[in-house]
């Protein structure tokens, strides 16, 4: 009893240093897995790791998914955990450049990850070093109502002209072609990415998000000219700025809208809302400029070690464990997403199978507009996309504004 009291007192005194004082044998994991499936997958990862390494205990702080994006900046400097969840690509660049993430090239080399995690190696590399371990990714594309398409005799469009024809036919039948919710801005980023990837290609997307191309470049203007061909005839649901992405799903479920450009995580929500698997189809976003190789958005989720982590040795064990084939199999079975490890088994699911095939044949994989572009640019950009989707006439003003932001952000 007395010892316990002393321990409590010591704990209280050390309260503010708690993260720093974690003894070896304990690692602190911060993650943003607040939704049910990601939470369960993370729990499975931790449980499995504890079994494999009984000498290490894992203390898990689970954060709200949206709030995490701001809190990570604080805890990386103030009280770093040993392992932190984040994203691949440019989105991790600020932390790498500020020296807040640990170089984990040794984990990759010692565990032959260059081989097993090959597909994501490029997106984890900055300055020739690896900065984290990826464990899951998923495809983006157009989910559509198979039953509605069958009923109206519509074929899956392969080209821009065909897509517009499908839209026109749906509209004639009083069905809005696309549902979308732009209240939280990011779904607009998916649209811009695909319009841009298909019009100008992957290299242009990377140049644009890297700030090398001005926003009033004719190629960007062309993207919006084409996009307007969907916006102006009213091919998106009304009032989309009033809805979150989940709130846009009911339009799709009720059959008021027939297509939804989304990430694969949306399938779960659609099924929960009452859609049967055979009512639902998935298609690759159609080609726009003929001959441009098809690249896709496939955001990758990752774990990292903060450079000020108190217990890096055990944190590296944790990342090595995360990279294992069977671990990624199990996590992605729970997540309903694709494992990064090429030796893992994919979940048995028709959409994931389709997605995997599409991504395997993809020319290149982009992360997503708000992961490839720096945060301040992404915010201004997606706000502009939202405004464009409501008021396409404002496009000149919007692009002028974005160009001003670009000039500042990338200086």
């Amino acid at each position, binding site marked *: 009893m007395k010892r316990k009291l002393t321990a409590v007192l010591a704990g209280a005194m050390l309260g*503010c240093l708690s993260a720093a004082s974690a003894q070896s044998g304990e690692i602190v994991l911060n993650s943003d897995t607040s*939704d049910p499936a990601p939470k369960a997958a993370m729990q499975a990862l931790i449980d499995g790791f504890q079994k494999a390494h009984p000498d290490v205990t894992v203390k898990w702080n689970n954060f*709200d998914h949206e709030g995490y994006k701001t809190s990570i900046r604080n805890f990386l400097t103030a009280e770093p955990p040993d392992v932190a969840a984040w994203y691949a690509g440019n989105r991790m660049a600020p932390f790498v450049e500020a020296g807040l993430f640990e170089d984990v090239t040794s984990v990759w080399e010692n565990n032959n990850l260059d081989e097993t995690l090959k597909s994501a190696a490029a997106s984890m590399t900055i300055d020739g070093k690896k900065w984290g371990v990826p464990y899951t990714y998923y495809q983006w594309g157009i989910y559509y109502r198979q039953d509605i398409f069958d009923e109206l005799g519509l074929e899956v469009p392969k080209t821009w002209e065909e897509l517009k024809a499908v839209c026109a036919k749906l509209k004639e039948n009083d069905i809005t072609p696309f549902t979308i919710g732009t209240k939280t801005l990011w779904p607009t980023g998916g649209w811009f990415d695909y319009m841009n990837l298909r019009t100008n290609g992957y290299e242009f997307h990377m140049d644009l998000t890297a700030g090398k191309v001005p926003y009033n470049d004719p190629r960007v203007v062309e993207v919006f000219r084409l996009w307007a061909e969907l916006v102006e005839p009213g091919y998106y649901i009304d009032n989309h700025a009033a809805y979150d992405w989940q*709130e846009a799903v009911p339009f799709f479920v009720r059959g008021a809208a027939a297509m939804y450009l989304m990430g694969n995580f949306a399938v779960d929500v659609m099924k929960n809302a009452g859609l049967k698997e055979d009512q639902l189809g998935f298609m690759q976003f159609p080609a726009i400029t003929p001959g441009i190789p098809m690249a896709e958005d496939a955001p990758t989720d990752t774990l990292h070690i903060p450079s000020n982590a108190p217990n890096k040795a055990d944190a590296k064990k944790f990342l090595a464990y995360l990279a294992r084939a069977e671990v990624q199999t199990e996590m992605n079975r729970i997540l309903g997403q694709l494992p990064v490890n090429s030796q893992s088994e994919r979940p048995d699911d028709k959409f994931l199978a389709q997605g995997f095939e599409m991504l395997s044949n993809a020319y290149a994989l982009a992360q997503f507009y708000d992961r490839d572009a720096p945060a301040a640019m992404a915010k201004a950009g997606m706000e502009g996309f939202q405004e464009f989707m409501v008021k396409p006439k404002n496009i000149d003003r919007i692009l002028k504004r974005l160009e001003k932001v670009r000039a500042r952000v990338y200086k």
Partner: protein
Amino acid sequence: MFPTPIARARPSVRTIYMFGLPVSLFIWLIPLLAVMLTSIRSAGDIAAGNYWGWPQGIFLVENYMAVFQNSPIAAFILNSFKVTIPTVIGAVALSCLTGFALGVYRFKANLLIFFMFVAGNFVPFQILMVPVRDLTLKMGMYDTVTGLVLFHIAFQTGFCTLFMRNFIRALPKALIEAARVEGVSELRIFWFIVLPLMRPAIAALAVLIFTFIWNDYFWATVLVQGEHAMPVTAGLYSLNGQWIASWHLVSAGSIVAALPPVAMFFLLQRHFIAGLTLGAVK
């Protein structure tokens, strides 16, 4: 009395008033009634878009159980208490001292210091945000209840001092003068003579500060991130993100979050209004 008492009005006017009063109250409270009604609806009602019609059934227990079981709201509420109660004690204690000093003594800087408290109490939070966040980070209290409490105590001292000082000013000076003639020390005057007289002010401030701090959202988002220290206002907002379109849960959660200050208000209404309306009467 103004306006003319309704008892003296014509019978027709009286009838209209007696009818109009509950009707207007009903309209005024529609938002709240809607939330209450929704908090007992079934998920089926919500899915079917039956937000305003008669509910299919009463799911009071189910919904509130679900709120407590599927979310950390109990922890959020506990955090809110952990933030609110020490803040009330701290701010009231500090302002008893400052209020006494500024209300009883005459010295050169008196009005200047008093105005500093008053002006500080009105500044926009944003001008404090970055430095306060930095300070809290440097003290290692970022994302802790303690960090939030310290700031709240300091900030609320402004308003509390305004309140206490004006209250003490209105107390009869004769008591203090008499004690001084007797040779009672200043500390004892404060403790044994003035403090007992301040009880009503302390009660009023305590209730008021409790409500202010409980309902604080801005500082909770600036100084706290994780579930372990997040008060219920910020917690409710993050839950809203997870309960998209589950309005029955959002409503039930809102009611749970609003309950403590509401209970406080109804139990201690007299003090609450006395605190709030300070200065509304000459």
